[in-house]
């Protein structure tokens, strides 16, 4: 396959890492077969909390995928040359994240064998139909862009002219994937927690903080483990992007909190109460949510003060807590919080089960495996060119 030969030669460390990932994937596969045989009853989901870890992870990784636009846009639209070396890393991150999203949707299906019914009976009034279109389109765009630009880099020629409009198309497309994903939730009349126009902007802001944070961490890992140095400048610039996005995200959250609590409408307040104080003795998510808040506030301090932001060690820590804080907020609280209390006022606690966590870890491992292989190919190509 295309440049794939670069992925099958590597150091001992490379292979040990791949084998570890494959072990996690294997365990997840066994858990999935168990889920396939027994039904989704093996998860912690219930009649009242019908979406949980899978759909929340899907939502979070749509954000990570969309965040590639934060390196693509400055480089291609503003000719910001500094990002030239890492643009493709962002695109490969997007490909891996979109694949994870699709897998998370797939493992959440009650009847996975019928999943193609979405194509057989296309239904434009369903937001899920549009989400499928935007996600698969985004995957295709990024696959084409990264393969074409990388193969040109290998041959030492300039990319063909037709790729430029494709790249430009990928910029609004990135915004669309997270907007449509927000529309999945905020168009539902009975779910007051999601019924807010700020949801899509909030999704985008948190995505542009979490995604570039992950990219900074990946760049730092690459710098430490390989001979390739993405350089200090792109990391500095990315950290500024993370700073702005995180500020905007926290601002949006506070706007939502004001609207909900000043208006005082019980249906809207109850979900926040459940997440941050607990309802009827159910408070399993409370420590998580406050951890997320604490990390968000701490990260703002570390991002805004230049002395901390420009220190690589501190920045690595900051990026980790930005990622963790937003993962808790979006990959845990946002989906579950929307279901509690239920439309009939029931407070049902939800905790993922072992098979559920195992399947989720496997999808994560698949994502890491893809990133590893893609980055390995990229770096090998660059080494051979240099």
């Amino acid at each position, binding site marked *: 396959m295309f440049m794939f030969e670069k992925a099958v030669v590597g150091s001992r460390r490379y292979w040990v890492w791949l084998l570890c990932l494959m072990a996690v994937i294997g365990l997840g596969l066994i858990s999935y077969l168990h889920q396939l045989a027994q039904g989704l009853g093996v998860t912690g989901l219930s009649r009242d909390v019908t979406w949980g870890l899978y759909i929340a992870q899907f939502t979070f990784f749509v954000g990570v995928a969309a965040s590639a636009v934060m390196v693509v846009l400055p480089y291609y639209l503003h000719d910001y040359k500094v990002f030239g070396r890492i643009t493709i890393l962002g695109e490969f991150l997007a490909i891996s994240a979109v694949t994870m999203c699709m897998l998370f949707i797939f493992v959440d299906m*009650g009847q996975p064998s019928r999943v193609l*019914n979405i194509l057989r009976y296309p239904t434009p009034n369903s937001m899920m139909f549009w989400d499928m279109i935007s996600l698969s389109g985004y995957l295709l765009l990024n696959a084409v862009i990264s393969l074409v630009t990388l193969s040109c880099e290998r041959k030492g020629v300039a990319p063909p002219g037709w790729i430029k409009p494709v790249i430009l198309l990928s910029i609004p497309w990135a915004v669309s994937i997270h907007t449509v994903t927000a529309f999945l939730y905020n168009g539902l009349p009975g779910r007051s927690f999601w019924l807010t126009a700020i949801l899509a902007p909030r999704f985008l802001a948190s995505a542009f903080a979490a995604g570039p944070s992950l990219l900074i961490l990946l760049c730092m890992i690459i710098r430490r483990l390989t001979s390739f140095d993405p350089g200090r400048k792109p990391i500095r610039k990315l950290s500024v992007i993370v700073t702005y996005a995180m500020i905007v995200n926290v601002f949006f959250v506070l706007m939502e909190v004001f609207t909900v609590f000043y208006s005082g409408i019980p249906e809207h307040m109850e979900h926040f109460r459940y997440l941050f104080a607990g309802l009827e003795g159910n408070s399993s998510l409370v420590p998580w949510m406050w951890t997320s808040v604490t990390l968000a506030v701490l990260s703002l301090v570390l991002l805004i003060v230049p002395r901390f932001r420009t220190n690589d060690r501190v920045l690595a820590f900051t990026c980790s807590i930005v990622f963790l804080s937003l993962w808790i907020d979006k990959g845990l609280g946002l989906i579950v919080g929307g279901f509690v209390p239920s439309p009939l006022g029931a407070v049902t606690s939800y905790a993922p089960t072992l098979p559920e966590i195992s399947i989720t870890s496997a999808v994560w491992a698949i994502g890491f495996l893809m990133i590893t292989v893609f980055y390995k190919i990229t770096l090998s190509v660059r080494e051979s060119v240099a």
Partner: protein
Amino acid sequence: MRVGRKEFLRLSGLSLLALAGKKVVNAITSAAQANKPATRPAKRWAMVIDIKRCLQEQGCTLCINACNQVHNVPRFQDRRHEVKWIWKEAFQHVFPPDGAEYMVAELPGAPLPVFCNHCDNPPCVRVCPTQATWRREDGIVMMDWHRCIGCRYCVAGCPYGSRSFNWVDPRPHIARLTPDFPTRAKGVVEKCTLCPERLAEGRPPACVEACKPKAMVFGDLEDPASEVRGLLNTRYAIRRKPELGTRPQVYYLV
């Protein structure tokens, strides 16, 4: 594209044959329909629940038992896996979020029957990505259990909590099987269907038939002479969460 004489004759012959075939099929199906009992197809089915009558016997579960039996609704010990078509909820949960401290003494905590509202503007139908749930001409919101992919978007979309998902295989949890109604597989969503299979035979839904105090009245809203229209004309009725614009077709007489 160019069509030769031979090809043209072949195509027109085939078309004529197809037309004739359609005529035959139509004739057969209309003959089959003629054998069915003559029931006037309703324009808009609706249900009216007389709260006073229903509360005469608060522990009564006749409607629930009848529905569960007729439709092979499974019973689970684990509350998380429950499948419910019709069940009872406390008044304040059926009609939130009033929370009034002072009201008719018997209402707070009073158990009321709840089931699918068969909305005129159903969000579940709007969100389903495969059209596995749809609204029929007569207003019934139906389910196709063979098309449903089990994404549970409709469950999230329903503002009344009327939809259940089969978290595990329901078949071992059916106490007494009714052979002439299908059982469901794991991984699909189900809910109240207003018994179209009984309506086709001119019989009312199973819950209505089972209700001893006649607290559940079923009929056609488009028919000015129907009992449901009579009740709604003379008594004050409320619907669940009317502010959401779903236009439920289950009315509760206060």
